[in-house]
């Protein structure tokens, strides 16, 4: 009960208040479907950006691959629910669940082996992981197909609405899980690269994912994803309640992570890798785990996003768009959870909503001329982001005050 202090209570009350006010406005149709869709997308974008903020803002790993994991999560979740609603089969769910579980177990087992072998180089470890995971996936697909029919029968025995929501929630979580596992395999070798090279490699990753999705029907064999024509027929089940719940969950998880020894470790890696190593922090491990957690949130957000419009297109995940979370994170202030959420909502509301409405007819295309101009002015006036290091008390009371600490050490230096 020690944790339940004033700021936590205030935060909870505030969250419930914000949620219920918007929920009431939506159900009373005061917020029409145009604005509510924007709100949903803003919430989803906030989750993606929070994941990136963990990777870049708190751990200092410059990643441009967030949209790749977002896409993986979106398509994974969409495939599961598509198979359930359109094909009336839980095979998508069982196969992906099995892949997630078995690949996860395999990664754990191999990790046990790899940590026991001293001094194994990253590429060898990567080769080990990859081979084992590929085998586990083959096994998982077989098992998943075996248990597909009984599971389908089980879900059929439940009321329609219930099974729909259970499958949807599982699909969203599995989207995150698959994204996390892919990010582990990809991040393991790539995280050894320097900061900029890591960014470039992750950019390459998101482009590879996009190309794969463009050819998902021909090359990957997922006919229902329809490649570059875009996937349709996904149930539109994401509502404000789901988005808000997952956003809240993300904020609380990230806040608690940052409060733990884990949080202090990743922040110390951002500040100085060498010093962190000398303090006994396993830099490679923490970098990987941060990348995995950040990608998990991206995949989770992807699952939510897929069920907003019921339509997915690879162009949504093109590399030009993959700058969006980065822009949001920088706008909100690197390493500020509050700032990221605020910036995500502000960004979506201004760019998708206000600019669309304010501009007169025929000037629709000016939206993306004004946007970079805003970006430029913003960078010139406030290079540290709108919120800088500001956090709401609920998060601030927990995160060690980075700015003050830094200032202290500087003044100490000056004094010396």
């Amino acid at each position, binding site marked *: 009960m020690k944790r339940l202090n004033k700021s936590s209570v205030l935060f909870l009350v505030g969250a419930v208040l914000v949620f219920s006010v918007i929920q009431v406005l939506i159900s009373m149709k005061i917020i029409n479907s145009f604005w509510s869709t924007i709100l949903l997308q803003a919430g989803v974008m906030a989750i993606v950006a929070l994941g990136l903020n963990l990777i870049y803002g708190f751990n200092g790993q410059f990643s441009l691959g967030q949209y790749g994991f977002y896409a993986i999560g979106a398509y994974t979740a969409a495939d599961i629910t598509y198979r359930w609603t359109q094909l009336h089969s839980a095979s998508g769910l069982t196969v992906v669940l099995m892949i997630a579980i078995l690949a996860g177990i395999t990664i754990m087992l191999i990790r046990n082996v790899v940590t026991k072998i001293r001094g194994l180089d990253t590429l060898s470890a990567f080769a080990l992981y990859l081979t084992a995971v590929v085998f586990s996936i083959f096994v998982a697909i077989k098992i998943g197909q075996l248990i597909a029919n009984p599971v389908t029968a089980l879900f059929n025995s439940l009321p329609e609405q219930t099974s729909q929501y259970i499958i949807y929630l599982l699909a969203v979580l599995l989207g995150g899980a698959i994204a996390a596992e892919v990010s582990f395999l990809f991040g393991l070798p790539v995280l050894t690269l320097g900061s900029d090279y890591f960014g470039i490699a992750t950019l390459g*990753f998101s482009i590879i994912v996009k190309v794969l999705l463009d050819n998902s029907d021909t090359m990957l064999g997922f006919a229902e994803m329809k490649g570059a024509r875009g996937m349709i027929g996904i149930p539109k089940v994401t509502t404000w309640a789901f988005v808000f719940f997952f956003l809240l969950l993300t904020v609380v998880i990230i806040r608690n992570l940052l409060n733990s020894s884990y949080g202090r470790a990743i922040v110390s890696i951002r500040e100085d890798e060498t010093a962190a190593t000398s303090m006994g922090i396993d830099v490679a491990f923490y970098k990987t785990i941060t990348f995995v957690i950040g990608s998990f949130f991206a995949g989770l957000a992807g699952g939510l996003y897929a069920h907003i419009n019921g339509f997915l297109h690879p162009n949504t995940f093109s590399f030009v768009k993959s700058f969006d979370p980065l822009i949001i994170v920088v706008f909100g202030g690197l390493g500020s959870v509050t700032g990221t959420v605020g910036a995500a909502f502000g960004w979506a509301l201004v760019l998708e909503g206000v600019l669309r409405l304010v501009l007169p007819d025929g000037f629709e295309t000016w939206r993306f001329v004004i946007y970079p101009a805003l970006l430029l002015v913003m960078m010139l006036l406030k290079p*540290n982001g709108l919120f800088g290091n500001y956090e709401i008390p609920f998060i601030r009371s927990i995160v060690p005050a980075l700015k003050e600490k830094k200032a202290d050490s500087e003044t100490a230096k000056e004094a010396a």
Partner: protein
Amino acid sequence: MERKNQNPIVNWIVKSKILGILFFVIIGAFAVYKLGTALFDNPSLFLQQVVNGLQLGFVYALIALGYTMIYGIIQLINFAHGDIFMVGAFASFYSISRYNVHLWFQNLFPSVPVMLAQIIGTVTVILVSMVVCALLAYTIERIAYKPLRTAPRISALITAIGISFFLEYFGALNFVFSPNYITYQRPFAVKSWFVGPSGFGSIESGIAPPAHSIIFSNIFLIIVFASLLLLLVLQYIVKKTKIGKAMRAVAYDKPTARLMGINSDAIISVTFALGAALAGAAGVLYAIAFPQVFFSMGITPGMKAFVAAVVGGIGSIPGAFIGALIMGQAETLSAAYISTPMRDAIAFSLLIVVLLIRPKGIMGETSSEKV
């Protein structure tokens, strides 16, 4: 990690790094097998692909040089570079179809042979685009990047992304470049030749070239010659002139260069202008090779050229050139022999593989001098 493992076999596996090596050897063996059988089955087709890849690679090289120079001097990934390339292509489009710049020389000196006049006309078009792009980049640098010299690096990066968006979407407005795909009129007539076992000759329209011969056109020749010439000029500027020396000094150590009396801001502006001029030339050559211009044409070639610069070792001029040639080959060969729709994925996988084997790119560590 000095402590040894108990088991000698495990110890050997660790020490020899055999697993990682095996992994890459398998990937490499697959590529070699694919390409080897392709060469064996139909050598002329293979060489034709190589020629096509060279054409693409030389264009990428010109763009990649700009990326590598700008990264070398201020460690900025200039995402707007691809869009400057687009502006270069559009500048040549307007100078050809609206102002007939390619005919100026011919009209001034009607007695000059047509072929020479065409070459000079093309060169004029390229020069016009280069100047336009250099001025544009200089302006952008002054307005957008210079105030951010002392800001965190990420601010400059976001600004570069913003400039990139701005150039694209401002260009997409109806009164600027329009959002349409526009057919590009080449400044010269296309002429093709064949070379092969049945000899060398020009291809006349309506007559098929002899079998098993490689076809190349004057487009290929112009691209190769223009790129090589520009590379040599750049190499001369960087290595032999005073301004090049200053550029290298700023790239090496900015504060010290400033102490030596070098105006580092001016030098950075010049570097931007120089890189943009090369991108402008690349834009013209790309539009000549693939005669279509549109507002977002810079994204993909820009990205590939950037990857080429990274593969070659960012900051190194010869590296950018080698990387671009590799990227050109990777793209055409994988399109021809592995999978056409997957060629971009293969090209970017190559990037990741190269980075894993050589984290600073192919020429990254060997060349200590950066520009």
